[in-house]
């Protein structure tokens, strides 16, 4: 009988631990267990046989660490041998009809970008080659297990789904606090795995059955899929110098009975379990009535480490990462200024956003590429789930692929073309989808018409295998100055979507007030009404105090926020920013702005004072360029000199840099065309293989203070890319950083390639392990012992240039 015909209909049992048993047979601590597929095939085959005889239905191949990061050309042979040994054991045991072979996929041992260095697609490829080989050798299913990073689990699952038609099981490893080592929880992980098309999901390793029980309850409440549970034989203990797992077969079986009753469907054992554990477990569990998985209609979107549940307490979706109508944001996207985008994200998160909408649609840029970069950058600093906002299916496709977590798409609509483009993507990547109640005939005037479109969308989504619980319907906000009854119809639509069709709802609110004065008052009132009518998601500006107030107040009034805890948390008087900044009163009082006050503000690192004084000076008609020459640069020189002589320290230098940066941003805006104030282009990069970029970032801030146009390529940058960007952007000065002795060779190689391709370019280097001597040896023009030294060198290079 096929596995798919039995899964979720009867108890199924995995085998148990391998490592401990192999060690008992002589596998050494640092030895790679998979080599035994070739070196000691009889031992591996016998181990499988013991588990089959104990009653296991599914054998796990000895391929946990069999990947390209641990093996070279011998890899396919090891995988094929592993599958073949399991097959031989199954044949010997006469269980070819009712036992299955799971191709085991463990973690790669590498951390994926952006936190680590392994590119996502490389991880996908690495897993795909294992799956292809294993499926070809005759595995019956793929088991992705012991995953401790959501992004890697996604890579493995995508690879499995793209490379074979076998059932795919996926289990993750949570620690005692219920988290992955990278921070995910069952609530953030399980919806992602289910969305990506796993056939069964669950938990294995790290914990014993007793510690796993609460997590099993949580997982069962989250998923409609069969749930897998494979605990260790308890938490390991050290006794007499040996690692001992305390839960013996009898107690294990007893605990597994409880886990089975909690709603698990596929049971097995991990580290420390033996054939005897499996035999007694099967004996204990088999007589229990089997409860098939129950369909759930919860909707959760997630990132790698956090989640948001849609449909309960209303959620705030921050709308600020979007260029439309925002000059500064457009400029940031054009300049690839990701820092600005990240600032916008953190501001919204601080204001209470639960999800961030991300839109990078701007004519003249490569929207898909920018979207990918923005998502990656955002996911390295925030754990908020993101809402991928684009009308271009190609952009959605790329974003959905690189997104870590369970994504939310904004949006599909009732037009056939839109549904045909969006639903296959939503299906493949398991996304939740915002659906606009409009179609080829435009926006229906009345609520009934919008509901009819919603019903059409639901029918079409179901044809793609996307259930209605995954859709969130937008009742469509129309400007009241143009459509006087617009708000009423929208609110009626929201109510009817919820009450008649039991759907989740969303509105982009701000459009309601277009063309009116004091728009946030109208927006806030509309938001309150929409929440009263059952809105699930409010797409809004979290930084707008009136709207934010309305959001939290309505939450408390509608008893979503019982006892007003969220309200109190949001509006409890916070210590003013003065806690982080010396009081502004430190600046001498004066009747009007003066350049002396600005200089003091920079010297003392007072950000808001520097902004205020710069703005005041500009308002008085000061020339931006002369402010740079007469105030900013002299102030920074003074701070820099104090730092170099040891009178000031790095934090103070950087506070001054921050203050100067804030003022400088105002100057930039005051100039007719961007770039005019810039003295010249400098390219910075942390070299290939190196991921420590704090030093480079400090150099960048200071160079920008001195009005240089800094092209920051980031960290772990290949020499080829540094060369090509240097040539493309006609860069006169390149700064390279490397922190480790192991990455200096990569710096040397970069210099070699730069010299060959662009001999006129000056190169400065810096980093903890470098010295003047070392810098000379690898052929750099200058060694910067600290950030100020880099500035001094840049000043000398560019003053020569203009001479």
């Amino acid at each position: 009988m096929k596995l798919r015909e039995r899964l979720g209909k009867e108890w199924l049992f995995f085998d148990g631990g391998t490592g401990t048993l192999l060690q008992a047979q002589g596998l050494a601590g640092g030895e790679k267990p998979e080599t035994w597929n070739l070196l000691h095939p009889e031992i591996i085959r016998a181990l499988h046989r013991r588990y089959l005889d104990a009653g296991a239905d599914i054998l796990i191949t000895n391929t946990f660490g069999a990947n390209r990061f641990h093996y070279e050309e011998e890899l396919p042979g090891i995988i094929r041998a592993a599958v073949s040994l399991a097959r031989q054991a199954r044949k010997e045991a006469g269980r070819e009809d009712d036992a299955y072979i799971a191709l085991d996929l463990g973690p790669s041992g590498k951390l994926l970008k952006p936190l680590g260095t392994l590119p996502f697609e490389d991880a996908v490829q690495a897993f795909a080659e294992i799956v292809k080989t294993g499926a070809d050798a005759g595995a019956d299913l793929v088991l992705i297990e012991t995953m401790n990073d959501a992004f890697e689990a996604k890579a493995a699952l995508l690879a499995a789904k793209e490379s074979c038609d076998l059932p795919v099981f996926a289990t993750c490893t949570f620690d005692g606090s219920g988290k992955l080592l990278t921070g995910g929880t069952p609530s953030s992980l399980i919806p992602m795995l289910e969305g990506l098309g796993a056939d069964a999901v669950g938990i294995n390793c790290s914990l014993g059955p007793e510690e796993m029980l609460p997590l099993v309850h949580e997982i069962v409440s989250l998923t409609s899929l069969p749930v897998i549970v494979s605990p260790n034989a308890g938490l390991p203990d050290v006794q007499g110098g040996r690692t001992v797992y305390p839960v013996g077969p009898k107690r294990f079986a007893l605990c597994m009975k409880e886990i089975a009753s909690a709603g698990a469907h596929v049971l097995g054992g991990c580290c420390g379990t033996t054939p005897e554990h499996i035999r007694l477990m099967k004996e204990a569990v088999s007589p229990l009535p089997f409860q098939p998985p129950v369909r759930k209609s919860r909707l959760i979107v997630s990132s790698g480490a956090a989640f948001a549940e849609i449909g309960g307490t209303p959620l705030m979706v921050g709308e600020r990462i979007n260029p439309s109508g925002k000059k500064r944001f457009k400029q940031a996207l054009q300049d690839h200024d990701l820092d600005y985008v990240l600032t916008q994200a953190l501001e919204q998160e601080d204001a209470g956003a639960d999800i961030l909408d991300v839109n990078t649609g701007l004519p003249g840029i490569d929207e898909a590429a920018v979207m990918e970069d923005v998502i990656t950058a955002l996911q390295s600093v925030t754990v908020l789930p993101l809402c991928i906002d684009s009308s271009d299916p190609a952009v959605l496709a790329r974003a959905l692929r690189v997104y870590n977590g369970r994504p939310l798409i904004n949006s599909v609509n009732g037009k056939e073309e839109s549904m045909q483009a969006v639903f296959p993507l939503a299906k493949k990547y398991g996304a939740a989808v915002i659906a606009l109640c409009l179609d080829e005939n435009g926006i229906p005037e009345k609520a009934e018409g919008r509901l009819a479109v919603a019903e059409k969308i639901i029918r079409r989504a179901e044809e793609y295998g996307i259930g209605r619980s995954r859709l969130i319907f937008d009742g469509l906000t129309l400007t009241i100055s143009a459509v006087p009854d617009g708000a009423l119809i929208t609110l009626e639509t929201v109510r009817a979507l919820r009450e008649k069709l039991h759907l989740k709802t969303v509105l982009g609110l701000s459009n309601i007030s277009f063309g009116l004065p004091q728009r946030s008052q109208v927006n806030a009132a509309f938001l309150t009404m929409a929440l009263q009518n059952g809105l699930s998601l409010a797409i809004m500006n979290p930084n707008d105090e009136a709207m934010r107030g309305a959001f939290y107040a309505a939450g408390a009034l509608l008893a979503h926020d019982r006892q007003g805890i969220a309200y109190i948390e949001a509006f409890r008087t916070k210590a003013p920013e003065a806690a982080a900044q010396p009081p502004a009163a430190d600046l001498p009082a004066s009747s009007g702005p003066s350049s002396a006050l600005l200089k003091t503000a920079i010297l003392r690192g007072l950000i808001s004072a520097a902004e205020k004084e710069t703005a005041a000076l500009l308002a008085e008609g000061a020339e931006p360029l002369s402010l740079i020459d007469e105030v900013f640069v002299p102030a920074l020189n003074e701070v820099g000199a104090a730092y170099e002589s040891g009178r000031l320290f790095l934090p103070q230098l950087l506070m001054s840099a921050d203050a100067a940066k804030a003022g400088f941003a105002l100057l930039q805006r005051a100039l007719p065309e961007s770039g005019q104030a810039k003295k010249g282009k400098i390219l910075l990069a942390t070299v290939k293989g190196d991921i420590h970029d704090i030093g480079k970032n400090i150099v960048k801030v200071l160079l920008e203070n001195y009005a240089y146009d800094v092209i920051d390529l980031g960290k772990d940058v290949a020499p080829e890319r540094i060369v090509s960007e240097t040539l493309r952007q006609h860069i006169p000065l390149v700064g390279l950083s490397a922190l480790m002795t192991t990455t200096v060779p990569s710096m040397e190689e970069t210099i070699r390639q730069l010299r060959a391709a662009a001999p006129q370019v000056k190169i400065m280097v810096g980093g903890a392990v470098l010295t003047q001597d070392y810098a000379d040896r690898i052929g750099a023009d200058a060694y910067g012992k600290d950030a100020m030294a880099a500035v001094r060198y840049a000043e000398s290079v560019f003053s020569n240039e203009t001479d």
Partner: protein
Amino acid sequence: MTMQATSAQDAAGNMLIRETLRYLGIRRADFSALPAGEQTALLDKVSAALKTLAAETRPRFASRIFPLVLKEGMVCFAEEAFFSRDLTRNLSGCTEVCLLAATLGAEADRLIRRAAVRSAAEAALYQGAAAALTEEYVGRVNETLAKEAAGRGLCARPRFSPGFGDCSLEIQKIFFRQLDLPKALGITLTDGLLMVPEKSVTAFIGLFPKGGETPGCTDGIARTGKDLT
């Protein structure tokens, strides 16, 4: 009791602040020379960074003890053997070596990046504070392991990390092999031999018999954990 606990916490807190300042390049005398207002402002910021990091990170460690043989400048334990003059000197007289790894986890890296988005000064503060927290944690783990060894009649040498002296970073691979760090702690090693998450430490701790007693270590005492007892 409460009073004592509080003052012990204060002492630990003060030590962390001092260490953070040291990572920022500020010595105690330098700090004293700052105007009072700037001292307070700096201390507030350092405390805030330490507090956020302590609240949001989950430090953890793994360790394993092996019988040790030193011969002809080679360090030999388990199936490993490598040359390092400086490590051999550190371990001379030791009969066992403890391999220790510890990390603040991925959350620390994310918090440092978040700080960097807000401001360069804050990034430097978080960097320093995270380094201080890591060292403090490793110090505590080291102390616990040394106490356990003392219970077996062994004394501990100061810890020694790959990258010190002539002990090359290649040696990191031994820690990854013997402690299975990706699985145990979520630490991974890049091709350039850097550990990710960044705030991670590996170290050898040599153990030698007190006053010539022979220790009774069998092989591979392993442990992992978060909370130290």
